[in-house]
């Protein structure tokens, strides 16, 4: 069981991510954010539980749906938003956008638009940490869609034989864009595959913050002491479409409504209230703070300069 203090702090973090993503959704609709975005709504407990227990120097790789991981790892709001708008002031100077967002100063080795693309990179980062003996660990986030990619299996095997300090976190929301997990995955619990690679596989209800926190704590600690990798399968129902604007024509309307009923933030709120915590104040404080940050970030992003076309070739090579 986690302490109420921890739960409260985590609730704030999750709410912050939720408000950020809801704002991104709304702003995206206005039409001036280039390309497309994928928001992290409903999965907040995973990012907060895992990244919240990592050091700044620990490394993570993320997916095309990476905003939540970034925020939970301490990435700042303003340069994130600027990157979504492709501005020079963005984290990646506008070269990457939402799906490739990265902040190496906070150990975020990048969101990756190739499904499963980040998995092997995190294993490599763990290899570096092990060889350098510097105490860092790596975590890779990926979805149920990635669970069938060959490179995941190669990476799990490699991490296992070398006992690398890495945690595999599978965020299973039941959908790979329009394809249900129930159709495409040969097992009902992806974590059962972990046994095939001689590592612990843990299924967690990601709508239960406490459970998520404990699972993350154990996996991180295992990696840290050199006992090797863990596979966490964090399950939660997908609340929104695959990308912002996805009408989900392929999805049963009621199933989607029911997804909202298991929302982790609502559930956590109820738990805190039952413990006598003044949730209303917490929500109001968090909202006020993040909304100010967001207002300023979106304004700055919209006014921000585009990268100069003279610098088109700037980051292709290290000199």
């Amino acid at each position, binding site marked *: 069981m986690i302490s109420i203090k921890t739960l409260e702090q985590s609730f704030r973090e999750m709410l912050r991510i939720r408000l950020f993503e809801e704002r991104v959704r*709304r702003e*995206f*609709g*206005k*039409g*001036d*954010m280039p*390309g*497309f975005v994928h928001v992290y709504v409903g999965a907040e407990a995973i990012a907060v539980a895992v990244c919240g227990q990592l050091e700044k120097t620990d490394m993570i790789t993320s997916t095309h749906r990476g905003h939540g991981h970034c925020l939970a790892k301490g990435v700042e709001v303003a340069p994130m938003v600027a990157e979504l708008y492709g501005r020079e002031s963005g984290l990646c100077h506008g070269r990457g956008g939402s799906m490739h967002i990265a902040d190496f100063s906070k150990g975020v080795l990048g969101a990756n638009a190739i499904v499963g693309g980040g998995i092997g990179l995190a294993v490599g980062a763990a290899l570096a940490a092990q060889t350098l003996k510097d105490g860092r660990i790596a975590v890779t986030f990926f979805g149920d869609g990635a669970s069938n990619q060959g490179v995941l299996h190669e990476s799990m095997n490699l991490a296992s034989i070398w006992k690398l300090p890495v945690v595999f976190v599978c965020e299973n929301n039941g959908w790979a864009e329009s394809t249900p997990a129930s159709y495409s995955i040969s097992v009902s619990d992806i974590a059962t595959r972990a046994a095939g690679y001689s590592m612990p596989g843990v299924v967690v209800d990601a709508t239960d913050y406490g459970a998520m926190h404990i699972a993350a704590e154990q996996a991180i600690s295992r990696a840290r002491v050199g006992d090797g990798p863990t596979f966490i399968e964090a399950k939660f129902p997908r609340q929104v479409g695959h*990308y*912002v*604007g*996805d*009408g989900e*024509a392929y999805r049963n309307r009621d199933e989607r409504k029911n997804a909202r009923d298991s929302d982790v933030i609502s559930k956590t709120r109820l738990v805190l209230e039952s413990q006598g915590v003044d949730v209303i104040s917490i929500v109001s404080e968090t909202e006020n703070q993040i909304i100010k940050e967001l207002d300023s970030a979106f304004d700055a992003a919209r006014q921000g300069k585009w990268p100069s076309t003279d610098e088109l070739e700037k980051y292709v090579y290290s000199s």
Partner: protein
Amino acid sequence: MLEVIMPKQGMYEGDVTLIRWLIPDGTDVLVGDVLFTMENEKVEIDIEAEDAGILVQSQEDGFVAAVGTVIGYLVTTRAEYDQIKAKK
């Protein structure tokens, strides 16, 4: 007061069409109620209310415009509703 817009869908950046309003003008709307159907390229999509309030429709069925264009408002009081209606 919240502006009701025809939002950008995925990567498509062209004009979109307000096919039809699904809730009558002046109705008290809840978050999640489906307000209207819009179309871009070939796909029709239902748009839900992001907020609660009284729906003010400022454009009619069949309206074509760029993504992000305002087609209505969700206001909190009857007075605001009347005010906006009066301006038209």
